[in-house]
């Protein structure tokens, strides 16, 4: 076994252990009096964050190892809702507005897209946004998802394609990961794209186009 495989195996185990911690924690929180619950909540929220990071690492590892994440019929309304659930554990005060028809349908890997969207939401919140809007529309056989916020917008080097922004919290990593996920949905006929831009009225805007 080489070092890379070993690291992969360890991250995998870490992720599973954290999952158990979360399940146990959730159960304990349900059973305890309210005043303790509030005290424990930050621990729980942090653990979930660490778990999400571990999930991200495992996925990253598999994406690079040419692992296959099969696409299937999926519904952006559901996917976005779950991304928001993950997001709001850490950012309960940021408002997220959703404009998606519940019947709007796409063809993608649900777990991957959820991670990508969670990353974009985290990015906006870390940049200082207070309100984030998410919309999705079918475009022929494809899908267009837009995440826009009222924050300061992307710094120039990000817009220039130098992913490493200097915001704390590893935004660069998040964007890189999101790009990988989007690229994974390319077909031989048409690429999937992630476009970053600053809106005319201010704020950052990320547009995912799936074939």
């Amino acid at each position, binding site marked *: 076994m080489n070092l890379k495989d070993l690291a992969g195996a360890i991250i995998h185990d870490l992720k599973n252990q954290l*999952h158990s911690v979360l399940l146990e924690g*959730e159960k304990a929180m349900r059973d305890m009096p309210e005043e303790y619950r509030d005290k424990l909540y930050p621990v729980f929220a942090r653990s979930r964050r660490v778990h999400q990071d571990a999930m991200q690492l*495992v996925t990253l590892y598999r994406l690079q190892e040419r692992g296959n994440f099969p696409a*299937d*019929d999926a519904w952006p309304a559901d996917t976005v809702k779950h991304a928001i659930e993950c997001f709001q554990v850490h950012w309960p005060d940021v408002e997220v507005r959703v404009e998606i028809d519940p019947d709007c349908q796409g063809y993608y890997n649900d777990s991957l897209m959820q991670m990508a969207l969670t990353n974009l939401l985290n990015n906006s919140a870390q940049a200082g946004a207070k309100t984030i809007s998410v919309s999705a529309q079918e475009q022929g056989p494809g899908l267009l998802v837009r995440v826009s916020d009222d924050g300061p917008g992307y710094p120039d080097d990000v817009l220039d394609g130098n992913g490493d922004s200097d915001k704390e919290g590893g935004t660069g990593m998040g964007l890189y990961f999101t790009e990988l996920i989007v690229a994974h949905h390319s077909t031989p006929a048409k690429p999937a794209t992630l476009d970053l831009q600053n809106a005319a009225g201010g704020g950052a805007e990320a547009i995912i186009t799936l074939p």
Partner: protein
Amino acid sequence: MTEASFNLQGQKILIVDDLVEARSALKSMLTVLGADDVYSATDGREAVEYIMEHDFDLVLSDYNLGKGKDGQQILEEARYTNRLRATASFVMITGENAVDRVMGALEYDPDAYVTKPFTLSILRERLYRLSLLKTILLPMNRAIDQGQIDWAIEIADQIRVEHPRLLLPVSRLQGKLCLKQERYEDALEAYTRVLESRPASWARLGQAVCFHFLGDTDQAVSLIRATLLDHPLYVQCHDWLAKILVGLGKGEEAQRELEAAVKISPRAVLRQLELGQLALTNESYTVAQDAFEQAMRLARYSCYKSSSTYQQFVEAAQHNLDAEQTKENRLLCNKALRALDEMKQEFSGNMGVVFDATIAESRTYKAIEDDNKARSSADKAEGVLARIKEPTGEQQLTMTEVYIDTGQSEKAVNMVQTMKDQGVANKLLQRLGAIEERLSNINAREKSAELNEKGVSHYERGELKDAIAAFDQATRFEEAGISVLLNAIQAKVSYIENEELDVGQLKDCYRLLRRIGSVGHFDERHDRYQRLKETCERLRRSAGL
């Protein structure tokens, strides 16, 4: 029904997970969704038992269940036995790293997947979407449950036209049903329709399978290989490729595909068995041994448990054993013997199986050249055979072979005679013929050895003429060994040197030397051969020949 009013009340639900926390978490989620009739199983065996006894509306199973069956095997048994109606749903819960192993099954695919970790709202939405789909598909699934497959295919066409968004799930079902009905052109059409808008791997495999059945094997093979490039862990691709390659007589290539499949998904008993059998035919005994060992282990608690798996494992292992006193040999031999013990125990009520196991035991000892133990197992097998009321011809022949292997040719001869008296079935005649040939060889070798001994004792007493007569008889058997031939030459040479120069005897010596051919330097008989050859040369020169 809206998502908010979605409710599982009154549905009979089975959840399957080996981890207690996961089970209780899932159960409480379902309770929140209104479920009031929930059963839970901790492993595949229990799950299948429940499915055999109850009519479930919904099964939620984890894919990875630790030991024993996995979720896919539960699904296969449930659908294969028709115990889970087509109108009922099977939802597979998978870890994020197992999704691509689960997605592709053409014949037995779950109705939906949920990827772990999931929350209540994820589960609610997944089940809600599924219930919408199942409602639309209801007339089609009813037709399937009534066995009216062609009608179901027709209904599917209507649904597809009315609900274009359901192209994928409907076409997938349609493809599967058409394959079942051997309507390969129609199946091909369904899969092609999907691929026109979505690059789904299952549709590509579906196309390939259709091409295979329609006779375009090359197209099928290249399509599957291309799919595997994109989707390397798509285990069913390897399975189908193996199946097609076997049909083309490419056993070794097929074996490589199954080896790849087993590497990805090592827990399927049937695949391990298939690999074992293929490897046995290909004489890849190490692969065969590993595959049967896995199959044996996996089948221990399943409906696939069979004595032949144990037997085939031991058969493969015998090929990998030899007389060397190495650790590997010892371990493997013990493993084989343990398997046979288990086989006897597990099937103790079946004397035929106990007989087979005891025979295999004798052959295993024979493989490491432990003749005493091979003989004692043969004796045990004889005892078991005597307790079988009406032994089959196969069993009698097997016993005969083992008699021969353990140096009991007289018993073998008697058994053959008994069988001939009873009358031998046609299909066994070839095997019987081979046994008789072995017996006549042994007989000849024994006779030759007897005459050789006689010659030696005459020679030692200086009765050279008698010695030559005995050796001449001994060498008349084709089976006479080099030592016997050398003895004959030596007797003749001594006679010529001590009694008279008999040219006929000298010519005999040359004939025998030619028959021996050459004797290698490392052969212990080399020096003797060389000496006798030189003596013959000298005698020939002095005779002026």
